[in-house]
């Protein structure tokens, strides 16, 4: 077993295991903290895929931003919604069967198609390429993302702020 695959299995375990807890746990607090682990795990996988930049963004945005937002959500709704922090589960049987089947099907399809079987060490994509793609080829996407963030900002401010009666 190489060093690489050892690390891979570690991160794989962290990612999938904690994702499992996120979904299965009856306590929202557990879920949200497991999600933290999942995000870390995924970041690790990115590093293994030699996508360091994505890994860093993943940590900054997901862990530093989205997760905080979710924790806020959990804390706020916990006292409001009747379910409380312990949330009930419906359609368990249907859900497990359907998603189990889907997972099986996806794995089967992914592994049975002879997709890019090369395992030799591939050259990582230089950050410069990504930024070049973003700023030059996908210039319009870049601009659009700006508008989108503006819209999200205005939307969030408009909905979230307190109204004077």
């Amino acid at each position, binding site marked *: 077993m190489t060093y690489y695959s050892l690390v891979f299995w570690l991160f794989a375990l962290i990612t999938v295991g904690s994702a499992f807890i996120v979904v299965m746990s009856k306590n929202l607090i557990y879920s949200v903290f497991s999600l933290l682990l999942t995000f870390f795990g995924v970041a690790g996988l990115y590093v293994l895929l030699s996508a360091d930049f994505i890994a860093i963004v993943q940590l900054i945005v997901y862990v530093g931003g989205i997760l905080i937002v979710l924790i806020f959500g959990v804390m706020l709704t916990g006292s409001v919604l009747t379910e409380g922090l312990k949330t009930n589960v419906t359609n368990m049987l249907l859900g497990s069967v359907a998603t189990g089947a889907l997972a099986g*099907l*996806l794995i089967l*399809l*992914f592994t049975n*198609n002879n*997709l890019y079987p090369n395992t030799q060490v591939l050259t990582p994509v230089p950050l410069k390429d990504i930024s070049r793609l973003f*700023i*030059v*080829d*996908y*210039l*319009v*996407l870049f*601009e*659009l*993302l700006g*508008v*989108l963030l*503006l*819209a*999200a900002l*205005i*939307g*969030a*401010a*408009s*909905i979230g702020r307190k*109204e004077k009666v």
Partner: protein
Amino acid sequence: MELTQNLHDLLSLRAELVLTAVILLLLGIELFSKGNKTLLRVVSLTGIGVVLILLFGESSTAQKLFIGSNGVPLMIIEPLGTFAKIIASISALFTILFMGINREDSTMVRREGEFMVLLLCTVLGVFFLSSSYDLILLYTGFELLSISSYALAGYNKRSSQSSEASLKYLVYGAASSAIMIYGISILYGLTGTTNIFIIQAILGSGALSGALLLMAIVFLLAGIAFKISAFPFHFWTPDVYEGAPTHFTAYLSVASKIGGFILLLRLILDLFFRKGFNSEILQPVSDLPWNDILIFISIGSMTIGNLVALWQKNIKRLLAYSSIAHAGYLLAGIAALNSTGLVAVLVYFAFYLLMNMGAFLVVILIKNEIHSEMLEDYNGIGSKLPLYAIALSIFLVSLTGLPPTAGFIGKFYILMALVNADLVLLAFFLFLNSVISLYYYVRVMKHLFISKPEKELGEAKQNVYGGVLTLVLAVPTIIFGIFFTPILRLAEAALKFYLP
């Protein structure tokens, strides 16, 4: 030098740029003039007017933009996309006009500027959805439309219904777009690109696995089905339609739907099917059961929509289910996979804009007077507010698809496409559904005209602004039912590069 070319291309997105400028201008007005309402309205309406003029100006040309190093464009301004943009802009125009009369929440008036900004952001989302030929760009446009819509659905802040509706909308919307992006990621994996043209070429060479491709398509369709509120992703529709402020519900039912449909059409016409027609029938690039999938979704949507609508007591919920059914009708037109079907879908959509917007407008007007959306409170409206009641009846008759209204022509063309594609049973089923739908549409009319009111309607009276606005929508609904050539011409022009 590519950058300069791209910057130059950016300037060619005239309608989009004007729209963005208007958004920023509105934001500025909101910030610096304490939300001067007249100014806001004038600016937003003129802005949309200018955008519409630009759109009509470019409605018959095609222009490739942002041609990358791989030689394929990122965006193409072409008539079909422009058609969708026009529909979205017109519905935004009406929504802003409706906004002034909606009196559901007093704080909404104060936040009109923000509403307009977000509304125009959704329009911009539709614009990018309409012209993009890159899946990531398409997805970003899709998300711009979605994210702004989530905020707008919860715009009626003081109603817990509205907030809940928007949360529900956001949660399931985010989930379905996540499914969609997963589908895109599979497609990316299979082809190594997100550009529609390259993917089409690779699919056309027939080197790809059918099953995984099918999976990707199903995931993609999930996101689209959510946007157009089609079965089995329709469940959010009634709650959101009921909870959202009514003028936004009207917008959502039209503009959001055209967003989903233009995406579906784009994928079908440019990605999964060969360009051009072989004996007026579309040829898929690989052997996938397109027909079956579309027919399944279509039948599911219209049946669920119509059957559940039968039990509704709230007019907005009723119209929500009716809009699910209409998604089914429109999908049937696409399922025909022939040229008539494409024209029919566009024609139907143009009419759908009129009649659905109109129906919601009257709902707003009546709610202003009687403060209720429940059908049982509609009793006796016919004699108290005759113009509104007659207009609502016209819209409902048109939604049912009876002549001489525009809705009939739309349905007629869809049926024609189906019969032409030898899908007679689907055609029969579609019409059977219209018969079912008649029952609940007529039930509304029964409440308006036949049932006796339990309590006095009091001060309810019609106002000039509302009356003019209803007429602006109701009169064309009738006129296009009799002389529909212009709309046919429009739809045909929109499909200029696709029809044989």
